[in-house]
Structure formats: C-alpha cells, structure tokens
C-alpha cells in the first residue's frame, strides 16, 4: 500500500508509530469506551420491568412513523394548524385594521396636514405610517396563532418524527435526511434554516439543503399566503367553507414548495452536486408534554414580536420609498408609474401586474412587507383612496376592505393564485442571501440560490396564466 507523502515530521512520526500498533487499536479504543459505559450503567441503573409510559409512546410512534399512517397524520396536523390560523385571524385582523386605519389614520393625517408641509405630511403619514399600520394588521393576527401552534408541536417532540418520515424521500433524491429539520427551521425563517444546515456534515448535501431552503415558506410569507388565499380563493367558496378552502390552498402551496425542494435536490444531486446520500443516526426523543403557558409566552415574545419588529423596521423606510416613488415625478409621470407601466406587460404575461413586481423589488430586504407594499402602491397609483387632494381616506376594514381595494385595481383569482406561487418561488430576502454567502463563502451559490427559485416562479406563473386564460 502506498502512503501519501507526509511532509510534517511530527505527523510522519505519528503515522509511523501507528503502523507499529495493533491494526485494530482504533476499534479497540472505541470498544473500550462502550464496554466501560456498559459496565458503569450495569452497576448503577436498575429498571423496574417495562413501563406503561414507554409502551404507550412506542405505540404512538408506530402510528406516527408508519409509512402508511405517518404521512396522512402529518398532512392532517399541518392542515389543522393552517385552518386554525386562517379561521382565527380574521376577526382580530379586522379589529386592528379598524383602529389603525379607520380611526387613527384620518386623525393623524388631518393633524399632519394642518401643521406640516404637504410633502412631509404625505411622507410621514401616507408613507411610513400607512405601511407600518398595514404590516401590523396583516401580519400580527396570523402570527399570533401560527407560531404558538407550530412551537407546541415542536416541543411535543413531533419534528424528529417528521424528519424520520421524510428521510426516505430525501434519501431517494440524493439529499440528507436532516434536510427535513433544516426545512422545518426554514418554515420559521430561511436565514435560520440556512444556518441550521450546519447539522449536515457532508458539504455536498449541506449545499443542497442551503440552496433549496427557500422553498420552505418563511414567517414573512405565511401571512401573504394566508391573506391572499382567504380573500381570493376562500371567497369563491360558500361562507361556511371559506376557512377550509383557504387553508387547503395554502396547504397546497406549502406542499408544492416541498415538492419543488425535493425536485431541485434531485436535479442538483444528479448534476452540479453529484453523490450518494450519506447515512446518519436520528434520535427519536420521548414525547414531552409541552409547557403550554411558557410556550405561548416565548413564541409570542421571541418569535411573533421579533418578526413583527423586523417587519416594522423594514416597513418604515419602505413606506417612505413607496411614497417617494409614487410622488416624485420624472417627466409627466411619477417614478412608480414608469416602473409599474414598464414592468406591466411582462408581469401580466405571468399572471401578475407591475405593482406586484415593483412591490417585490421594494420588499427585497424583507418578505414581510410585500402585501403592505402592494396595498400602498395600489392606493397611491390608482388614486382609489388618499391622494394629495383627498381630505381623508376611508378604508373598509379587514379582509373585505383589502379585497375590494385589490379587485378595484383589476385583480382576479388568477392574480391571487399567481401571487401565491410567486411568493413561494422568488429570490430569498437579502438577510437570507447574506447568510447563504456567509455559510457557503461562495458568490456562485448565492447567485444560484437567488436565481433558481425566481426562474422557477416565473415559469410556473406563466404556465398557470396560459392555462387559465386558455380555459377561461
């Protein structure tokens, strides 16, 4: 056997010495550790028969990780969480919108116009305040239900079972089974999911997990999905079924994301990142009754308020930018007009409109502000409400208000569906992109992570628009 040339004298000596030792000394050391552990445990641990609790947990696991029953249970649990979120968020959403948009906004606007120059009043109230108010009323209620529900499942110990079930699928597409865990983190925040990929040892599989993490809908995109599904798809069903239809639509988009993530992993592991899936051991921890109150508290403080704060921080400058591009003129029209009308032909081709694309550009720092940006731009550009001459703006409250605003601007169910797809498949937010760069140290893979989902999104939306228009 030929040995690689070892230049370091110290390492060379260690290697030479290794050849003088018994060949299996490595295994013997490992065995010694195991034997010692067994000996000590033998002397200090006593077990009293088989416990009923363990037997019960094993029975539960047999159902939850069974190939036939595991997947339906998984889907059902996820769908229930979504339905709870959609059904429960409607009322508080309308209440918050009523206070922030109907009550406070006209007062603020009147006060600002009375004391400040018109441009400053517009920038502050029509721009920054309005964007922030929309972020809060659109995002806060669904987050307050979705996050705690998700965290409860996590604390119960359900996530490792999900990873266990999905392992088979990930292995088939040449990815690491722990990608299920990084995706689960991605459902909270893609930047966190990308960092979580550190649990994957193999660099090849880590890259796959990082590049495809964006297909897990994040915090910032759930509210978009839920709102659009409710007002465009749920509304087409009878009132009693609104929640179920909307939840089904969001579920379908999330499922599509999961499918795309598998597909992209498969393609990558057969082209740029060729290789076999590596094995690993996954511990299924015991089910632990979650501490409900503490879970509610931490998921509200740590996640909901954290995400909301981030959204507000990004909404304030974005609101200013939106107001500026909608009010600064270049030639005969505003900047926003030029941008929107320039992008409109292409946008319409893929089932969207220019306003949505402009909103996505403005919202690159944070997905959270996509819907508020869309709403603001629609208001400011179509002059439905507000505008420089209006004394006050009347908003209808809640989902119905948003719906009439958007249908008034020419939106159809097709726009809603395409927006949901595009929200799933577009570039990750700038925070996530920066995290990808930091984790991979590769400009190339950062670009791939941004372009791959965007291209897929454009193609999917174009196909849907084509089929929809042909059939309609």
């Amino acid at each position: 056997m030929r040995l690689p040339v070892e230049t370091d004298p110290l390492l060379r000596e260690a290697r030479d010495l290794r050849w003088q030792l018994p060949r299996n000394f490595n295994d013997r050391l490992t065995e010694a550790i195991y034997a010692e552990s067994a000996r000590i445990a033998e002397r200090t641990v006593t077990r009293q028969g088989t416990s009923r609790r363990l037997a019960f947990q094993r029975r539960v696991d047999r159902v939850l990780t069974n190939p036939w029953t595991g997947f339906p249970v998984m889907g059902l649990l996820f769908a229930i969480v979504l339905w709870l979120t959609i059904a429960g968020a409607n009322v508080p959403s309308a209440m918050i919108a009523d206070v922030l948009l109907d009550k406070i906004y006209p007062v603020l606007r009147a006060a600002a116009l009375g004391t400040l120059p018109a441009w400053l009043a517009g920038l502050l109230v029509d721009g920054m305040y309005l964007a922030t108010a929309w972020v809060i009323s659109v995002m806060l209620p669904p987050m307050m239900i979705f996050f705690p529900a998700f965290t409860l499942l996590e604390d119960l110990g359900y996530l490792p079972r999900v990873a266990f079930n999905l392992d088979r699928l990930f292995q088939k597409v040449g990815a690491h089974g722990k990608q299920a865990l990084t995706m689960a983190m991605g459902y909270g925040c893609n930047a966190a999911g990308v960092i979580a990929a550190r649990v994957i040892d193999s660099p090849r599989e880590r890259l796959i997990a990082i590049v495809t993490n964006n297909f897990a809908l994040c915090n910032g995109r759930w509210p978009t999905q839920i709102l659009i599904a409710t007002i465009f798809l749920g509304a087409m069903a009878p009132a009693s079924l609104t929640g179920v239809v909307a939840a089904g639509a969001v579920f379908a988009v999330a499922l599509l994301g999961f499918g795309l993530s598998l597909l992209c992993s498969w393609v990558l592991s057969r082209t740029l990142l060729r290789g076999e899936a590596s094995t690993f051991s996954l511990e299924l921890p015991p089910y632990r009754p979650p501490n409900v109150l503490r879970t509610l508290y931490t998921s509200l403080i740590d996640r909901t308020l954290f995400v909301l704060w981030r959204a507000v921080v990004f909404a304030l400058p974005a609101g200013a930018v939106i107001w500026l591009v909608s009010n600064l003129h270049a030639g005969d029209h505003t900047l926003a007009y030029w941008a929107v009308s320039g992008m409109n032909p292409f946008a319409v081709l893929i089932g969207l409109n220019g306003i949505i694309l402009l909103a996505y550009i403005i919202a690159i720092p944070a997905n959270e502000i996509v819907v508020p940006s869309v709403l603001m731009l629609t208001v400011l550009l179509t002059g439905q409400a507000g505008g420089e001459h209006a004394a006050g703006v009347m908003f209808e409250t809640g989902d119905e208000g948003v719906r009439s605003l958007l249908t008034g601007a020419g939106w159809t169910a097709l726009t809603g569906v395409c927006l949901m797809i595009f929200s799933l498949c577009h570039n990750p937010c700038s925070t996530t992109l920066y995290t990808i760069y930091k984790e991979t140290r590769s400009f190339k893979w950062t670009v791939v992570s941004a372009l791959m989902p965007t291209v897929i999104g454009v193609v999917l939306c174009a196909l849907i628009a084509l089929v929809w228009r042909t059939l309609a």
Partner: protein
Amino acid sequence: MSSACPPSACDTCAVPRGPAQRLGLDVGKADYVVALAGNPNTGKSTVFNRLTGLRQHTGNWPGKTIARAEGGFAYGGKRFKIVDLPGTYSLRSASPDETVAREFILFGKPDVTVVVVDANCLERNLNLALQILQITDRAVLCLNLMDEARANGVEIDARGLSRELGIPVVPCTARSGEGLPQLLAEMHAVASGAFKPSPYRLKLAVPGLREALGRVVARLRARFPGLANAEWIALRLLEGDSAVGEMVSTGTLGSLSADHASQEAAATGTTGAASKEIRA
C-alpha cells in the same frame, strides 16, 4: 459535596447555597467559565436558560443548538460565564457542531464542564461523558430528566455513579428546577478548586500504545510549549484524525490554545490566570 456528604453537614458547610442571580447576557467580566456539554436532546439549553434567565430557544429535537450560546449568572459571590455547546454523541468525529464542542472543551479551558446526560439512557450518554473525562478533570455530571426516568421506572444510584466516575453527580429535572441548587453548589466547588475531582480515566490497554503516546506527546510539547491536553491530541494523531493533524501541521493548534488562554485571561482577570496555573 451534596452527593457525598451527610445532610447534617449542611449547616456548617462552607459551600454557598441559595438561588443564583441570573445575569442574562451580561457576561462582561466572569470569574469562572462553565461549559455545558452533552448528547443532543438532553436538555442542555433548558439548564442554560434556568441558570441565566435567558430564553435560548429550546426544542424537543436533537441538533437544536448549532452555534454556542453564552450567558451569565452570579453565585456564591462569583460571576460565571456559561457556554451552551451543541449536542454531540462523541468527540471523535469532525462534523461542524462536534468541532465547536470539542474545541471549546479542549481550548476554551472551562473552569468546570457540566456534562448533561439523559437519565433514561445513561449507558449511551456515558460514552460522551467518558470521552470528556479524558480531556478534563474539572467536570460535574448533571443527571437530567429525572422526572421522566422516574415515570419510566428507571432508578439510578447517583452516589455509586459518582464513585465510578470520580466526579460529582447531581440528579436534576431542569424543566422544573429540581436539583439545580445542588448543581450550582457542585459547579462552584469544582470551578473554585474547593473540590478536585479525580475522574476515571479510560485504560489504554493496547500493547505499545503508552510508549507511542509518550513519543508523540514529547514532540507536541516541544513544538507547542504549554499545550494543554497534549496526550489527548497525541492519541487523536495516532488514530489518524485528519482534522487534528491539520491543526498540527498548519500551527493553528498553537494559536488556538494561545488565543483561548489569552481571551480567558482577559475575560477573567487574575482569577483566570491563577486557575490556569493550577492546571498547568
């Protein structure tokens, strides 16, 4: 030591008692550094949160803590900096999360390493504990999840375990706070040097290994004076650990131990320097 002395001794014992003062993220100047190690999903982050008052996210799945988290608390008049390490099954492989844990225990020179183990599966958890005891003397075993163990009909002779391992063993249920006062007392005793554990060392019963180790250790000491854990590193080299080999050939081993030592001296002031001397 609460696991080794009669209850009657408590009244006269000099070991500080009572609750710890949580310092959260305020770890500016610490007297002692505590490392929190253990298998995945044994409740390290729960112990960490309990002691520091922080809300490091805990989750019921292995691999939750990826990077290390730091926090602080004060106890017995001393300030402790506590580092929550990613969960690992072993110190012998080189995955990113295991490397974080391994390098901190090796080069972070913690004043005490708390090994958190799941009382329900002690045997498997002991593998890591024994490996940690190869590296450091200053360790305390936190026998966590005792509530589940009781519910599962598992009984553990904590005193016997303490005798076997040669380090303090404290049965705990971190979620409810059970056992944490004793854990704090033991951590304080070991960190301050009031109690010097003499941990069980694995016998390296392989013919010729002792001699081979001696030669590599001598080489290592010559190249990296003041290197801690030279024997463990030598063993890894003999076993052909390429990650450790790279640290030797590129010289990062020297700068790593120097870096951590100077960081610690800067962070802990004179106490840190003194405690380093004891171990040197």
